[in-house]
């Protein structure tokens, strides 16, 4: 199993380049730039790293066809792939942050399927892509300018229908915030639909996990608490493994303190019991100080045993410290 890191575009293209090149020296497989609505454009922020890197892959996660037409997504990924000399990737999903900001629905399987089919065809070797779908059309789209091998197309999914569609459309699947306690449900579904037998080696399976380990334990927990709401938006399946049934219902009815903390960039989640916060931080993130690294490596080993080909560790503040920690202590233990 390999390790990727995910950075937020708000740190800017120059910092992303420097951090990506540092990650490259450690053998980290990919730098993913997170495509958030309230941050700089992720594709643009990735360009300097793509141009400067030699071995590390450069990807964008996650992109939704409500924000850009699928052909435009394909065009952006192909551009990134040219600059990254064939080392680009993208995660396309029906959700992410953008649909909410542009007032559109999420979890639309048919729409996402059309988008993925258009993107997949555009990334491949077809000289001209034409498509007549219910949601999207394409007329004689060609990419004669491309010179590199195709970028990797990931689908982002958690529900059965979306997983089924992605397993037959994409090169890979990236989950978000899945933990070993959830394997039975989610991998049970995936393994019934993904072409394990037909594609034993070329269907990649990834998962995004928040990484908050710091020298200072308090700073780590503060950061993890601040970001809790975006751990799968604290949907039921993500909180049930860690909370009592009545606590689950309470959190589902009270997401706003978590959202407020995220928006105000504070680790203080007003009105939520510390017990609940502690449980969710422990279950849904990798937090703590360097003395916690060994047990988090054990958790990563569980992903490896289940057939995950890579894990993408989402970094926040002090990314240099995190990359060094991952590169020096975690990566050698996992590979």
């Amino acid at each position, binding site marked *: 199993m390999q390790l990727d890191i995910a950075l937020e575009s708000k740190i800017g293209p120059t910092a992303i380049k420097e951090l990506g090149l540092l990650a490259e020296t450690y053998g980290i497989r990919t730098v993913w730039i997170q495509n958030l609505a309230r941050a*700089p454009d992720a594709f*643009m922020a990735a360009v*300097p790293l793509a141009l400067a890197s030699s071995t590390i892959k450069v990807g964008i996660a996650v992109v939704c066809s409500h924000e*850009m037409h699928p*052909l435009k997504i394909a065009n952006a990924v*192909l*551009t990134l792939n040219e600059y990254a000399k064939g080392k680009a990737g993208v995660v396309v999903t029906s959700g992410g942050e*953008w649909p909410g900001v*542009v007032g559109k629905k999420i979890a639309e399987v048919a729409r996402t399927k059309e988008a993925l089919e258009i993107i997949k065809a555009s990334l491949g070797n077809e000289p001209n892509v034409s498509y007549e779908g219910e949601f999207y059309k394409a007329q004689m789209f060609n990419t004669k300018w491309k010179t590199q091998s195709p970028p990797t197309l990931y689908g982002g999914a958690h529900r059965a229908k979306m997983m089924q569609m992605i397993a037959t459309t994409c090169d890979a699947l990236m989950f978000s915030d899945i933990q070993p306690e959830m394997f039975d449900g989610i991998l049970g579904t995936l393994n019934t639909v993904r072409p394990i037998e037909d594609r034993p080696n070329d269907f990649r399976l990834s998962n995004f996990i928040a990484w908050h380990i710091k020298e200072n334990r308090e700073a780590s927990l503060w950061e993890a608490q601040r970001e809790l709401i975006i751990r799968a938006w604290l949907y039921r399946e993500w909180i049930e493994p860690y909370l009592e049934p009545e606590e689950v219902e309470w959190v589902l009815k009270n997401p706003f303190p978590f959202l407020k903390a995220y928006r105000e960039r504070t680790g203080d989640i007003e009105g939520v019991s510390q017990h609940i916060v502690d449980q969710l931080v422990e279950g849904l993130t990798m937090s703590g100080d360097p003395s916690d690294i060994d047990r988090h490596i054990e958790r990563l080993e569980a992903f490896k045993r289940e057939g995950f080909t890579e894990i993408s560790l989402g970094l926040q503040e002090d990314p240099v410290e995190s990359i060094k920690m991952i590169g020096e202590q975690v990566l050698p233990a996992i590979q």
Partner: protein
Amino acid sequence: MDIDIILEADLTAQQIKELGLMAEKFGFRAIWTQNYAKARDAFMTAVPLALASKKIMVGVCIVSPYEMHPLKIANATLTLNECAKGRGCVTIGGGGEWMMMLGFDTSKRVSATREALEIIQGAIREDTFNYNGKLYKARWFNSDWTTDQPPLIYAGASGPKMLSMSSGVADGVMMGDIAPVMFDWPLPTLNKALADNNRTDDNFRISNFLAWHIKEDREVAIQEARREMIVRGWLERPWLEPFLSPEDTQFVLDNKWPFIDAYRKRSSHIEGIPEHILEALVEGLGCTGDPSDLDRYIEKLNKYSEAGFTEVALRIHDDPDYSIKLIGELVLPKLH
């Protein structure tokens, strides 16, 4: 009047950076990357130049709200603007190459462009932006990560409806292939709309996209101009009538395919179109010839200045470094 350069869409990010830095030395106002569907992403290719440049503006033209949600255009433009330390710009239009490729109905072009311009202007200026349009929505968008002065937002507009709409929403307009002989078509409409919107004194930018095909070898210049002829206002009636007889105008309107075919094949041979038509269109709809023609094109450019244009964006094609040097050394110093 300032001069901008619009680069060919097939250039790489590194080439654009080098050409842009060369243009910066000559004192050009802006470099625009052209947003074509059959080329690399125009925003992405502009990033290295934006990061490396110090004075020159860096823009993308033309982006339509059919290819990206207006908030996404705003986000990309703001990103470019941050990279360029406040020197970013974008031209929003209802047409362009992408729209045809995406198979959209064109009947709502003006409404779509208006809503897009309103969203983009709101998104880059308001702390938290909400919008509830007929075509587009925005909810709780904020760009508190930005630090620089806002980018300039142009509308790509040549016809009366689009010009009138743009004058109330955009920071400027970029017309397409308007020759001096055509000034009476767009300018009265634009000037009236600016007056109606009380914008005659707020530095509203008036630009025109103008094809530039001056080469050492005159024949090469003419071949390039012919190859690109179809994209000169898509040879619609207003772009033909000033230069052709009524019968020839109708002939071209009925026979655009040879122009499209030449453009697609990158050929100067336009099958079945009489030579006198090609010569008249090449002469009328751009700046084509060899260096001995420069004086008359400087005269032509000065007519834009006299008519109130704040800049002209010269669209250069093959041998862009030659064109930038030629314009920088021999044209820029002589403009009013």
